[in-house]
């Protein structure tokens, strides 16, 4: 057996940017999601103190972290450019190695070129090398059978960055209003934006995972083990996959059902609190058991 180096594997060059990026993403998802629940409540006319605090605290938390995430995003993109040029080229839809490369937003990649993209001149070189004329390696440097699927990675990357930018704008509006007027913005448009911010944060996070996982293909361990060589040759595995899909659909439906029930009668005891239930309720429930 090969003598593995567990510490080297655990603390590779991308460990710290990945860890920090994901931690911030998790906090942002939490903050925006909770805030969005209360934003919906406020849009339905519940504007008392509990709803305002319920929106204010998580939103302030998430809004403070969002600008930090932009900086960490720059850090992680530079790490990817140094260590996984194929992934970076796919993220940016960059085929030719170019000096002064433009930043391409959107578009479709086919015939070794990105079509219909919006280009910001010298943007990519500036972001990656902090120099408008820096040279960015393109996919042409990578052997054909080692290139990740460009469209998935590029569009997922644009989704993450686009939603992240929108969340940054929301955070700035919130921060500016708080700073200048000492109150939180309460216009219907602001509340609507907060109401969708939770979903946006989740989608941005998932898009980020698509970037990092699909962007590494065809490798499962970068440069060492290809995904097609790693998969178990046992017969019938796809049946297990279908079963997992069915079970998770059922579990999701059940969870939604139970959560909706709990929302209607929020005093039902959680499993851990079964002993703390007042006895009268106990009797009532035992009768229907």
């Amino acid at each position, binding site marked *: *057996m*090969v*003598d*593995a*180096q*567990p*510490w080297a594997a655990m603390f590779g060059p991308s460990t710290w940017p990945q860890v920090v990026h994901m931690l911030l993403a998790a906090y942002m998802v939490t903050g925006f999601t909770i805030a969005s629940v209360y934003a919906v409540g406020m849009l339905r006319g519940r504007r008392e103190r509990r709803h305002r605090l319920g929106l204010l605290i998580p939103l302030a938390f998430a809004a403070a972290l969002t600008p930090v995430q932009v900086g960490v995003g720059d850090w992680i993109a530079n790490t990817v450019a140094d260590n996984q040029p194929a992934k970076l080229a796919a993220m940016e839809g960059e085929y030719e190695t170019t000096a002064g490369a433009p930043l391409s937003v959107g578009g479709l990649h086919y015939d070794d070129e990105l079509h219909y993209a919006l280009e910001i001149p010298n943007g990519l070189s500036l972001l990656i090398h902090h120099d408008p004329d820096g040279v960015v390696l393109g996919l042409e440097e990578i052997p054909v059978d080692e290139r990740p699927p460009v469209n998935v990675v590029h569009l997922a990357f644009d989704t993450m960055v686009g939603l992240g930018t929108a969340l940054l704008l929301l955070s700035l509006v919130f921060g500016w209003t708080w700073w200048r007027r000492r109150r939180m913005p309460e216009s219907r448009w602001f509340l609507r934006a907060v109401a969708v911010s939770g979903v946006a944060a989740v989608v941005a996070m998932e898009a980020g995972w698509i970037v990092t996982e699909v962007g590494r293909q065809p490798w499962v361990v970068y440069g060492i083990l290809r995904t097609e060589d790693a998969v*178990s*040759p*046992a*017969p*019938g*595995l796809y049946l*297990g996959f279908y*079963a997992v899909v069915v*079970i998770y659909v059922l*579990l999701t439906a*059940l969870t939604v059902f*139970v959560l909706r*029930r*709990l929302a209607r009668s929020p005093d*039902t*005891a*959680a*499993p*851990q609190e*079964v*002993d*703390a239930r007042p*006895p009268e309720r*106990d*009797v009532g*429930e*035992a*009768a*229907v*058991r």
Partner: protein
Amino acid sequence: MTLAEVVLSMMFVGLIAYGLFGGADFGGGIWDLLAGGTRRGARQRELIEHSIAPVWEANHVWLIFVLVVLWTAFPGAFAAVASTLYIPLTLAAFGMIARGSAFAFRKSVTTLGMRRFLGASFALSSLVTPFFLGAVVGGVASGRVPAGIAAGNVVTSWINPTSVLGGVLAVLACAYLAAVFLCGDAHRDGADDLADQFRLRALRTAGVTGLVGIVGLFVLRADAPRLFAGLTGRAAPVVALSVVAGVAALVLLAGRRYVPARAASALAVTAILVGWAVGQYPYLLVPELTIEEAAAGRASLVAMLVALVVGAVILVPALVYLYALFQRPTAEQPAPTAATRAVR
């Protein structure tokens, strides 16, 4: 003892803990299934729920522990077992998912139909999950899992005489342990009639387990001669200890001495598991892969050992406190009075 053997021993301690705590947990679900109709079984179900509710998640952490140590320290053996036996392992995982979610969701619904559906899912998955896990053990112990990825037959590796024996014994051991533990819990809560019901069940289950064990020896002699030779040879003293502890547990149960009966029962189940390990030493996967051959590199083993020691320092006191806490009757909540019990 080599470094690999030290790490494997710690994994085996986790496996024994899973057998005892996870086993009792599955067994609780099995008795929930057999408790009878909605109204008649209500009190038993309540006792079961009360006993396992605080610890049912903690119990299954032991399985995760075993799997993590196995794939870190013995990756070759893990790959062989997980790929060849993926069908029963996946079914066991589905069983645990169904069990856990049904148990949690049952608390949040009040309609009888929904409660019955979720209760049945909980109870039924408690019955089939230990069977699949026992079948996995049977497949490994009878040498049907060769080294290499998916090198064994994915069907006959777990549908064979030894696996069926392993599955049936696992279900019986779970039911027995749960019945013995529930006796003590019921007695402590002052419900001696319930304790007597579970005492009878424990005694009957022990009888059936003993019979299956004797029949099992013939099954093993025909189907897994190496394991049979190991169990009746080198591991004979350990197997004998299990029999003695099992008989002692029955005597203690018959005399309603529930706390020592628990200890004796736990010892009997532990000794059977240790007997299996002693019987197939030094092989991890009979008859090809020894412990040393399957072990990961030294750096991984050392890292694993450090993590285990640090983790144990944090986790063990917390777990002991958790179990101790729920073995105590709560101070502010008196045992159910006769009046409320009558309504139930």
